[in-house]
């Protein structure tokens, strides 16, 4: 009881803190800042209503961005889970293939961005490909890690009950990997968002990247911030979706809170 009243106190204090930051930004933006660089939150909201909403091309670009994220994420889940299961299936396949995954993961993908654009063109395909190549690794790595960390005692218990190799995988190893899979899915979403956004910003001839560049070069901070705000909201909604799915599908399992590590250590 003490702890729950304490965490709700923390929640309200957090809300107050965030409100305070917004108020400070409002005051600073309205009275002190150079309007070529800064806009108060109220100005950003006005720009959202007046400059973003009535512009069908911007709305279309945002919508396309959502579709690209969804497609890249779907591919990441499919390919990442399958690859993870194959790599993690036996200790031999893990020691043979996991170092290859780690090696590929160590490549700074952003250096390949111009190459990806060269291969896939300026359209959605490049953005989906770049989002996918970012999102797939955390999923593979966490599926493998989840299957690896199964407790020796559980394996021995299953064997003592007469479980076959496939039954052991089906009833012990896979269920054990589920929480870790969801950690991978959460991180995979964050990375997919990163990949798609990077590609969007790089291609400045169309899509969201065109408008961010346009507003930034014309020193038009209010619509720029409003557009970034829209993308941030999209990112938050996608993250929440994954979190809700996790809560729904893994009842009673403790979610690992670490968001900072790409792999559960």
């Amino acid at each position, binding site marked *: 009881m003490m702890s729950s009243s304490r965490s709700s106190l923390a929640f309200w*204090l957090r809300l107050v803190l965030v409100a305070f930051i917004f108020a400070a930004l409002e005051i600073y933006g309205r009275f002190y800042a150079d309007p070529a660089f800064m806009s108060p939150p109220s100005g950003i909201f006005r720009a959202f209503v007046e400059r973003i909403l009535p512009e069908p091309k911007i709305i279309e670009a945002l919508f396309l961005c959502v579709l690209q994220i969804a497609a890249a994420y779907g591919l990441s889940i499919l390919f990442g889970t399958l690859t993870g299961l194959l790599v993690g299936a036996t200790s031999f396949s893990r*020691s043979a293939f996991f170092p290859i995954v780690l090696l590929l993961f*160590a490549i700074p*993908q952003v*250096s390949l961005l111009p*190459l990806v654009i060269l291969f896939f063109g300026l359209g959605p395909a490049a953005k989906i490909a770049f989002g996918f190549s970012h999102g797939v690794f955390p999923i593979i790595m966490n599926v493998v890690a989840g299957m690896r960390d199964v407790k020796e005692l559980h394996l021995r218990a299953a064997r003592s009950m007469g479980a076959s190799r496939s039954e052991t995988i089906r009833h012990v190893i896979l269920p054990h990997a589920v929480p870790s899979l969801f950690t991978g899915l959460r991180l995979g979403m964050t990375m997919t968002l990163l990949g798609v956004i*990077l590609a969007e910003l790089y291609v400045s001839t169309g899509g969201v990247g065109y408008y961010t*560049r346009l507003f930034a070069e014309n020193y038009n*901070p209010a619509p720029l911030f409003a557009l970034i705000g829209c993308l941030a909201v999209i990112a938050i909604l996608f993250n929440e979706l994954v979190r809700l799915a996790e809560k729904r599908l893994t009842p009673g399992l403790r979610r690992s809170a670490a968001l*900072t590590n790409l792999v559960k250590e």
Partner: protein
Amino acid sequence: MDRSNFATRSIQISFLAVLAGAWWLATETGSISRLFLPQPRAVYAAAERLVQTAAFWSAVSVTLMTIAKAFLIAMIAGIIVGYLVTRTRLATQVIEPIISGLFTIPITLFFPMFILFFGIGTGSKVAYGATYAFFPIALNTIAAFSNMDERYLRAARSMGAGRWQTFRHILLPGALPVLMTGMRIGFFICFASVLGGETISSVAGVGRNIAHAAELMESARMYAWIVFVICTSVTLNLIVYAFENRIRNR
């Protein structure tokens, strides 16, 4: 080397060999346009020419300086903020979720703002890289200091440890492994985000050179740059892991 170890190694080596062979074969037979994928020897020649130019070294030094500055700022700010936040339980509960929540949004979104505030030069990349790397460092610092086992603190107190002694001999060494993890993650995020920032919008640096080569369709030069970046990054990874293992195992 036992047999399964030998088998796994040969699988890994043949993977790399097949990759290299496929590259060579695809370009020799002309089944893929050399504009997209130049021949290995063309990339090698381009790389040789590249390292002899002064422009190469000036681009590398611009990028390295940018990464160094950004990482230094992120490290100092991340550790100080992280440590201060853990001084009370309430502050940890209030502030930690804000930082970890922000970190799930790609900070890249805000990159146009950095360009707006700091211009197209290196300043915006330093700020962007520092901001991105701040989050994992601060979050790991918070985790490192707030997960301290209460029993160690009580034992130290019973032995008469003072405040500074408790920090120096209990809190700091206990937190060090997680702090190191935070700095490793922060460093590589810093590395990638500076490169990314340079690629998207800048006037100098390694990322800019890759993008520039791509714009001019000089694929051999672009690949030479990419190979350089990949080799640097893999080497850095190996160094950092070896360093970390050394500290862990003493």
